């Protein structure tokens, strides 16, 4: 601004052009700076996580911090898989989230269709209330029930509890998706004598594949990210990844490098899956998901 006013009185057109170009440049630079400020916290935390996981422990504890691994090492990853059974916990998470998602699809996709065609909008209120309920209020009764049934510390108990997360999200996403589908084809099939089931199975379901993909990924991610169910209901052998990583932190005093490596193992699959559903995440997070806590 100061430069501009100083130069403005001079009547030489070239100087004027230079000033306006400068001004445009300054505005561009300010905008680029704003973008950098907004995006950097997200990038820096992930980069720091990566940096910690690729460094030797000596560098991780150095002060001032060592920012770039010299040279990068995969020893931390090898360590968590070899000494902290990260492979087993990864498998546990895969089994629990996998089955919870499959069951949710089996019951939730037909239900979403039924709700859409019955225009039963009141059911979404139920989902909204579930969204507001603290996760611990599901956990206390289910813990008691599993205790009674002798199911505590089993993967079965974990799968059942994770249905609290996966079923509402699949029903919510599918009901919304089926509502957007045109009904003419279904009407034709029904008038030709098709039953509701065959119409659903052979007409509506094939058209709803994109919705099913979104519902599957969102349900899987929310289940995968859940910490508290695994922490309470899992044992040393059956707990899921987030619970296992937390236990490693508190009870075994693990070094920073392996801890960061474990954190990456937990969160990388989710970040990869997220790429496929960029646009639908908001709907999932605002209405359907019963998240942790």
């Amino acid at each position: 601004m100061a430069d501009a006013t100083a130069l403005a009185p001079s009547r030489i057109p070239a100087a004027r052009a230079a000033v306006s170009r400068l001004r445009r440049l300054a505005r561009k630079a300010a905008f680029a700076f704003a973008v950098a400020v907004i995006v950097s916290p997200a990038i820096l935390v992930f980069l720091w996580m990566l940096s910690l996981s690729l460094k030797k422990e000596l560098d991780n504890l150095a002060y001032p911090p060592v920012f770039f691994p010299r040279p990068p090492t995969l020893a931390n990853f090898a360590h968590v898989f070899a000494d902290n059974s990260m492979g087993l916990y990864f498998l546990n998470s895969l089994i629990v989230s996998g089955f919870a998602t499959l069951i949710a699809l089996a019951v939730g996709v037909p239900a979403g269709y039924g709700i859409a065609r019955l225009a039963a909008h009141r059911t979404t209120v139920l989902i909204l209330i579930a969204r507001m309920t603290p996760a611990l209020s599901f956990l206390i009764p289910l813990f008691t029930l599993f205790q009674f049934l002798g199911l505590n510390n089993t993967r079965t108990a974990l799968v059942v509890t994770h249905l609290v997360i996966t079923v509402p999200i699949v029903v919510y996403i599918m009901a919304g998706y089926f509502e957007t589908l045109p009904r003419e084809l279904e009407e034709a099939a029904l008038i030709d004598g098709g039953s509701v089931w065959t119409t659903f199975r052979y007409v509506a379901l094939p058209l709803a594949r994109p919705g099913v993909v979104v519902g599957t990924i969102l349900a899987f991610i929310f289940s995968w990210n859940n910490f508290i169910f695994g922490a309470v209901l899992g044992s040393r052998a059956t707990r899921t990844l987030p619970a296992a990583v937390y236990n490693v932190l508190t009870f075994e005093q693990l070094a920073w490098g392996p801890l960061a490596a474990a954190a990456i193992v937990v969160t990388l699959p989710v970040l990869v899956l997220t790429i496929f559903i960029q646009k639908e995440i908001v709907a999932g997070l605002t209405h359907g998901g019963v998240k942790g806590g």
Partner: protein
Amino acid sequence: MSAATLAAPGAGFLRRRRRGYRLLTLPALVVVAAVIVFPWLFTLYMSAFDWKIGEAAHFVGLANFANLAVDRRFLEAIVHTFYFTLLAVVIPLVAGTLAALVFHRQFRGRGVLRAVFTMPMMATPVAVALVWTMMFHPQQGVLNYLLTSVGLPPSQWVYSPTWVIPSLVMVEAWHWTPLVMLIVLGGLASLPTEPFESARIDGAGEWQLFTYVTLPLIAPFLMMAAVIRTIDAVKAFDTIFVISQGGPGTASETINIYLYLQAFAFYNMGKASAMVVVFFAIIVALALLLLHVRQRLKWTG
């Protein structure tokens, strides 16, 4: 309704159809009854009992609730929860709106940068909390290095009773600012262009344009973001549990953390159930309050 006006076979046809649709929802209803409705009812029932796991349960009526009303630690937990929630709603709301205004413009690399910006939202909270724990470390953490390298004094972060809640809010804001951004961005994309044009013709500057045109128009979306954020912030658990466990002392102990301790460290299931009932009532009350404000201000979009 239309069924009644049709001939008899048509009516039967429609009725059979509706029964078919209802049958499709049945399996999901059974699951929801088992894992969602049963826990609600059981919690309500257990809140009237004095019951520790492994011991006999005694019916105590409303005594659990009466005890909570004079439980100092519980009342402090409510205060901590409100403090945490206030910060964890307002900060992402302001930061998310600013970010949305930036991402609403066209610029090179916008798609990729927006994807990067939204990554924290889906990252596993426990994994991220572990990294923040290391960053908060007063001696070897990178945050104190950054503070001192720009000439600021180092902070005790989550080890200080005063700073623990703001520090935890920082992590929460890092996670959820992107969600607010996406909601507001959706709002900005849906706005009509005429009000902006006429305001520009009237000579409004950028700031006036924002406060008098943009802000009132995106208010319904901000309100929705505020409701979602409030529900989630009140229930925040993973971040607090992993990073501070409610400490130092009980400085960051929220209702949810105290509730967890009562249920799964002390096994006081009756008392914990009563806490859940109160907690749920608080969440619903906050949500209704915000929806009421929205109605009053006619911000329903």
